[in-house]
């Protein structure tokens, strides 16, 4: 069953007062997320991955395109209908310290969600809060603490408890561990995997960290300057990536093996281009080691290589 379907999604932000410039943050992407899977969205900062997550939840309005949640066209919903659907689609943000209200105790923060969406009856709220707190691996004594009294990892657990309070089916996890230490990161990722198994959750997992994506995602989409350039199963992307950018990205990941230190890397020249005037043709051609004439003028189409492995590159068309 398909949980999320995105068709030709675009989001242009305008900037400048007199001479309008458009930042093409997301520029025509399509993909599907299947129920129960973790779909990883990976790319460097500024490639538009966070914007995609926000568009799907309709936290911001797209410029063009369609988004379906279990065949419901989200963009066609009225405000009231969208509000009713909200509990089913949730988001875990990157920085837990700033996504929790600093003046509310942990227990109040969680209870607030239960009250707002009338998840349980009033006299059951306390019981439910304790159940949620324990589900994310915290102690009931944490209920009376404030966010500043907890560590970053513990606050992220609270943020996860608030999301779980609504019994969601689909969760966007936007860099949920990028501000955390290695071991705390492992604790949170482990928790998310356990919860997914237990509750049958579907994730859109957004990250710039390929090592994290590798252990979390079933399928991966690689994004570059507002476009998807490769999509496939995690094992296919890591063992047989096709796009030169994906290959460079993978080879750039430092490996935790001193013996493999001298592994030849593809070190890309330059930096990601400015999305205000993204290059013509293939957007990656300015940094691509295999660029040819055609890449400068014609944008490559996404083509299917073999079941479900798609790539947008002239080398394969």
């Amino acid at each position: 069953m398909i949980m999320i379907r995105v068709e030709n999604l675009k989001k242009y932000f305008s900037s400048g007062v007199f001479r309008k410039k458009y930042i093409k943050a997301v520029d025509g992407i399509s993909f599907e997320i299947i129920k129960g899977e973790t779909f990883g969205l990976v790319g460097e900062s500024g490639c538009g991955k966070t914007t995609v997550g926000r568009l799907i939840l309709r936290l911001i309005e797209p410029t063009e395109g369609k988004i379906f949640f279990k065949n419901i066209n989200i963009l066609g919903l009225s405000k009231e209908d969208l509000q009713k659907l909200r509990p089913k689609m949730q988001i875990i943000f990157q920085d837990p310290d700033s996504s929790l209200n600093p003046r509310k105790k942990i227990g109040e923060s969680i209870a607030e969600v239960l009250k707002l969406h009338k998840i349980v009856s009033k006299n059951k709220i306390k019981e439910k809060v304790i159940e949620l707190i324990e589900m994310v691996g915290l102690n009931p004594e944490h209920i009376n603490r404030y966010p500043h009294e907890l560590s970053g990892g513990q606050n992220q657990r609270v943020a996860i408890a608030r999301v779980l309070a609504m019994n969601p089916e689909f969760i966007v996890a936007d860099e949920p561990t990028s501000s955390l230490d290695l071991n705390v990161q492992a604790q949170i990722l482990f928790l998310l995997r356990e919860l997914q198994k237990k509750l049958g959750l579907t994730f859109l997992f957004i990250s710039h960290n390929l090592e994290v994506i590798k252990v979390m995602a079933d399928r991966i989409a690689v994004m570059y300057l507002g476009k998807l350039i490769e999509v496939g199963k995690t094992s296919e992307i890591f063992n047989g990536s096709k796009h030169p950018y994906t290959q460079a990205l993978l080879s750039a990941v430092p490996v935790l093996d001193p013996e493999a230190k001298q592994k030849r890397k593809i070190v890309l020249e330059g930096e990601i281009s400015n999305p205000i005037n993204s290059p013509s043709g293939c957007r990656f051609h300015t940094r691509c080691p295999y660029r040819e004439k055609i890449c400068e003028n014609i944008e490559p189409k996404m083509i299917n290589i073999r079941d479900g492995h798609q790539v947008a590159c002239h080398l394969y068309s």
Partner: protein
Amino acid sequence: MTLLSIQNLRVHFLTEDGIVKAVNDVDLVIDEGDTLGLIGETGCGKTVLGLSILRLLPKNARIEGKILYRGKDLLKISEEEMRKIRGKEIAMIFQNALTSLNPVLTIGTQLSEPFELHHGLKKKNAIQKVIEMLKLVQIPSPSERVREYPHEFSGGMRQRAMIAMGLACKPFLIIADEPTKGLDVTIQAQIIDLMRELTKSSMSSMLLITHDLSLATELCDNIAVMYAGEIIEYGSIKELFKNPKHPYTQGLLDSHPSRGLKPMHGISPSLINLPEGCKFHPRCALAMKVCKNKRPQMVEIEKKHFVRCFLYDYD
């Protein structure tokens, strides 16, 4: 030959909340041409250790022990002597280039400072030197870029400028504190390559302070693992990754995504309220009675592989 030898270093901060015991009886040796990685989680005291070498700590710090640089104790010399060493013989690359660079001065003005200060060059000649340095760290069109301000540089370029500044006087020792934090992987790969080349060509030693195990693997010869203000394991990179001995080192490696993502339970202790005995015992699955009361000593279990744990302390 030994370049830097830290002996019994202890750094405590007096604060309103109590005494923050950031560095506790640390011994470390860096040989000439060596790259030592100091790894540990947030709040384990690794940055404080780095800053104490250059005497850059705030006034409420109480420092004990010795930091011998070429036989000279850096904690005893005068401020004037220290200033001659700082930036010239021992340089630091800070983690956040945007906050470490002065936003109202051009890159050229800031980077020329070490040349004017330590080599007595005139401004004009110093700027020439800066342009050479920027070229070395592969910043495109350096003679124009030298007139720009930090905000006109991208994150990767700012970090390169920081590295250029750190290396400006060809220091004998570079202290690099999380030099690739917040950079994208493709840019990170460029910076790693650059640092490896530059330290090799200038024969500098380096102390790399990081929480990123993969980065340490890429750049270091030896690794010291820090936990709650103490060095708990030390060894060559190969030995340490193949054969980690301390339960914390083992746990840290196992929590890495590429090693199966098996988290340790619990969190690092606060430096104000450290546990008795072995600092890791409340989280250690193999803790014994002795671990709660006595601090384990550093023992050499194999050649140049040291560990601070009662599992290996047979006396």
